[in-house]
């Protein structure tokens, strides 16, 4: 099992704890990853499509040349790449145009065969939950966890690939909480937006969304939240205190990245999963996990 690993910008920028925890977990599971180092940011839905499609075509072409499927660790990277991939594979004329105008210069051509999968999907669809279960060393009993998917692991339909898995993919994060031995603290906003995309355009609305989701999670008894999207993490963790102040309430909910959560069940210590790098203190989670044997 080998992947062209696309870590994205944030796992090496604003959430530097995500990159090492992902690599450690992949290594523990014997998932072989070859990092794509000479590729661009996806554009993250900020760059217009006429710029992001060509740079994503280049990334997809590079993975194709490596002969490997891609693995992402960010819902946003996943979604933007998958949407570009959909346009490029479903419209041969468009692909030819992009190849000719943007990739030929570098001697590249995208033929349309690269599959892009988030690590969460890899665990369920390629690695297999039965295999994963055999490696659990520390069931995370005592953690009450709310899932938070990040929009692009749920929508749009063509980016979740219209396969028989497409509906199942909408519940993987819910499922993995129980599989790792923790308890699900469900929230109605788990598939909604965290507000990050409008942080600079409309900060008030963005923070209101953070307070809404984390507040609901707290209310439903969660002691932490888990997300496969580092952009959600930036807002839910990094701006939680400001969101709480705006909403007039203290929230104080630790937000874990998916690989950190899985990693702790596989036996890594919270420290080894770099949870101390978060803005909201994770000490409540650490206490529970450290007491588990």
């Amino acid at each position, binding site marked *: 099992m080998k992947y062209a690993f696309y870590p994205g910008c944030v796992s090496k920028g604003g959430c530097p704890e995500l990159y090492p925890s992902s690599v450690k977990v992949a290594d523990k599971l014997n998932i072989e990853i070859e990092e794509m180092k*000479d590729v*661009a*940011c996806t554009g993250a839905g900020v760059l217009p499509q006429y*710029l992001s499609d060509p*740079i994503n075509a280049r990334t997809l072409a590079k993975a194709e040349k490596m002969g490997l499927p891609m693995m992402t660790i960010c819902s946003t990277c996943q979604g933007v790449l998958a949407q570009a991939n959909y346009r490029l594979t479903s419209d041969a004329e468009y692909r030819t145009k992009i190849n000719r105008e943007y990739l030929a210069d570098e001697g590249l051509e995208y033929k349309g065969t690269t599959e892009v999968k988030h690590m969460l999907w890899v665990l369920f669809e390629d690695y297999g939950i039965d295999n994963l279960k055999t490696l659990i060393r520390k069931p995370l009993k005592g953690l009450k966890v709310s899932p938070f998917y990040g929009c692009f692991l749920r929508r749009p339909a063509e980016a979740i690939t219209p396969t028989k898995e497409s509906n199942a993919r909408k519940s993987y994060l819910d499922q993995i909480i129980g599989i790792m031995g923790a308890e699900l603290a469900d929230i109605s906003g788990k598939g909604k937006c965290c507000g990050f995309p409008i942080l*600079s355009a409309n900060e008030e609305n963005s923070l209101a969304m953070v307070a809404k989701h984390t507040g609901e999670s707290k209310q439903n008894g969660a002691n932490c939240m888990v997300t496969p999207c580092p952009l959600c993490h930036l807002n839910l963790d990094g701006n939680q205190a400001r969101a709480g102040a705006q909403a007039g309430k203290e929230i104080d909910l630790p937000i874990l990245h998916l690989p950190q959560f899985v990693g702790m069940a596989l036996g890594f210590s919270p420290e080894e999963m770099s949870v101390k790098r978060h803005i909201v203190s994770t000490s409540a989670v650490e206490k529970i996990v450290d007491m588990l044997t």
Partner: protein
Amino acid sequence: MQVTFKVYRKDPEKDGKPGRSNYTVDVPDGATVLESLFKIRDEIDSSLAFRCSCLRGHCGDCMVRVNGSSRLTCTAKVTAYTQKGPEISLDPLRNVSVIKDLVYDWDAFMWNKIGTVKPWLEASDATADAENVIADAQMKDLRKVMSCYQCGMCDEGCTILPVDIDFVGPAALTKAYRFVFDPRNQNAKEQLKTVEGPKGIWDCVHCYEADEHCPRGIEPTKRIIALRDEAYRVGITNEKVARHHKSFAASVTESGWVDEGRLAIESEGLTNVSGLMKLLPTAAKALMRGKAPIPYVHAKRPGAEQIKKIIEKGEAENK
């Protein structure tokens, strides 16, 4: 089949407080929720208020929440909602002010907002009095958008409206798309400006909920993204957004990837002291927790030169 409908009630002529009435009716196989509502009103409670018009899923007037999800009652079959038991809840939409029972304020919900995007065509003077003939192929994309029957399902699904009722919303923005991209429009750039300000296109989080809710497959989110891409192409006028986009594009062009430290600062604006000050507590914590390297560096990626070439070419070709 006996079904109990638990219906949201509110009567401004009484106390105006929200409540719920339960009605148990016998409905035939294949009955729709709307037919059940008629039966309740005719046989049990003539004071129950709800809306409907075309009765065939074409007008959107009868939309309410059936067991929590927005549906047109005229096409929603009762049996589709009774699998867990013979009970169905009916509520008005979430992002609306209710007038009475299931009747809500359409003006505030959608019509006034559609009015703000100037939903009309400004053709050139030369064609003002003449027929403006256009090739069929040029209208292909717009025809899809024009099939919108303004049911408001996209606004119901919207993630922003529950936190900000003044957001223009996907329905009105889709209407703006229909005119901005009309090849006959002589004033597209001005029209684009009507949705570029606060509460417009840049307030959308592009979460694709609207697309999932649209019963016609019009994909309002993709229309909003197209409006944003067009604004980017012709020059964004919303200052805050322009700063953010400019910084984002510059760091990807120069290094291949996003420099988040730079983006946070440049998005606020280098001369915006209060904006920069509010970043400080989080920035200080981030540095303390080792989130950012000290001294701060953002290295160029291998391949950055090629990425720069592609972006510059894309910019030039879409001028």
